[in-house]
């Protein structure tokens, strides 16, 4: 009897697991295969014959290509600034005890707590008060702020893992603070910092809620262009765009795995 009930619950759990995995992956497979649909209109799944016409439509659309270019430039520059400021702050937070330290750590992680729309609207009103209307500058500022929690957190985690005695050894051998940082601390922390950069870049590349408030026609990002397109006309060039963005995601995952190892994302645990 016990065995029977156990088997039943085991099957139920496995069933739920299977349903969940299908629910997670299924829609992506649908989108990828629909992006290869040869039909010129949005028709039910599955496609009868395949073609690359929607990719041609996507890459032939000036707005999308311009948006992709803007998104990449924005993502790289925002990540760079965010990583620099975040790593410096993490260095201060790891190596020093000072009054107000918990408050400062909370401040650096706080952009994650505020809903993105609130940050977007706040920056919009703030910039228009100051008379700053340059879209790229406004987007850059916003993306730096919203990605700072990722870079600070990643830098904190990797710096905390470095033994003080390494730096102390270098200094006792005559290295100054700058030499000790570049020869000891940075090489040991750089993979962690880089992982933070990947998270920040992915976040920036994906952001809609903040960017919709701040872009102008010279700085439309790809997600903003796609949202506009999706609201006006739900055709399959968005499926091609979605597949393309999913490929970028896969690329980021592979980089992350090569650099830090995916296992580290959840840690090893005590009973593994």
């Amino acid at each position, binding site marked *: 009897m016990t065995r029977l009930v156990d088997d039943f619950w085991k099957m139920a759990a496995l069933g739920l*697991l299977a349903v*969940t995995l299908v629910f997670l992956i299924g829609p992506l497979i649908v989108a990828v295969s629909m992006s290869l649909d040869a039909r010129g209109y949005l028709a039910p799944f599955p496609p009868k014959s395949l073609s690359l016409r929607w990719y041609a439509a996507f890459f032939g659309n000036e707005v999308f290509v311009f948006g992709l270019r803007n998104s990449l430039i924005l993502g790289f520059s925002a990540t760079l600034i965010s990583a620099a400021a975040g790593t410096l702050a993490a260095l201060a937070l790891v190596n020093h005890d000072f009054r107000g330290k918990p408050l400062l750590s909370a401040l650096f992680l706080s952009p994650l707590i505020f809903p993105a729309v609130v940050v977007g609207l*706040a920056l*919009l009103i703030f910039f228009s008060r100051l008379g700053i209307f340059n879209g790229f500058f406004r987007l850059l500022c916003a993306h730096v702020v919203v990605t700072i929690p990722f870079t600070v957190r990643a830098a904190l985690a990797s710096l905390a893992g470095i033994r003080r005695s390494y730096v*102390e050894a270098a200094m006792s051998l005559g290295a100054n603070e700058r030499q000790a940082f570049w020869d000891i601390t940075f090489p040991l922390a750089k993979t962690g910092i880089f992982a933070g950069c990947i998270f920040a870049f992915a976040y920036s590349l994906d952001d809609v809620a903040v960017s919709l408030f701040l872009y102008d026609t010279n700085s439309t990002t790809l997600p903003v262009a796609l949202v506009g397109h999706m609201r006006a006309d739900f055709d399959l060039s968005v499926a091609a765009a979605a597949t393309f963005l999913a490929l970028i995601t896969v690329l980021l995952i592979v980089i992350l795995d090569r650099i830090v190892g995916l296992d580290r994302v959840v840690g090893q645990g005590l009973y593994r």
Partner: protein
Amino acid sequence: MSSAEIPSDPVLASGMKRRRKFLSYNLIVLLLPGIVLLVLLLLLPLATIVVESFRQYVPGRVGGSFDAPFTLANYVALFHPVYINYLTTMLWCASIATLTALVMSYPIAYLIARTKSHTIRIAVIGLLVGLLFLSALVRVYSLELSFGSVGLGRTIATLMGISSNSSSYAIFLVIIGLIHHSIPLAALLMTSTIQNINPRLVEASQALGAPLWRAHLSVTLPLSMPGVLSAFLVCYTINLSAFVVPMILGKGKIQFLSNLVYDRYAELANFPSGSAIAMQLLVVTLVITYGIGWVLRRWTREGAGA
């Protein structure tokens, strides 16, 4: 902190003294860029919308109302039944989605934590991290293709006895979208807790005669509660501030507070009202997540003590 103590070795001691002095001067340099960025680009703008939310709306003045008189009207309007309705719909959708996502992600977390195959472990973690990185637009578009009117939409809607164009079906789609977004995060957060539970405990309770389901229910689940709670809080916060999912999948029939904020800007250019709704969203999110967090922590502590 022991690492900050001056070592007895004189050479090292002088080096550390020098370093400490150097660093305390450096501390400001290290922290300055980050603090300036956050004060200038986060705290000041937030203060601006707090002020803005008390301004009177002057129609036709794009860019807000600099010198308009102060009023409470923007907040009073939020108590109108229409707005209360927006708020309750949002809370309801987010709650259902978060709870369902937790139930669905627990088996995945358990699989990652306990599987003996390294390949399965890495594959599933890779899938979850990939879904976490996946653009919200890709997610929403794929779900619309699969569950919208070109996909399974009509079938599911008929099974539920509603029209695929109705607002109930829009609610269903929004909840589906929120669940799809929450599962990867919830599963990854719970995995770290589950893999710290000693599997011998379940074996022990089985040896004492408990059936496996009973052993999991009274051993594994209570011990993994901290992970479940943090997953709940993180997912609930994210679902409450969801923007893209209700905007695209809700098709204007369902609007979360985030969407209202955006419409106030994009369609009406009513910045004071938009700011007030933004403040409401902020307060609701903070109060609910901290409030629920506090209650749940108390509750589990009592449960563990009993």
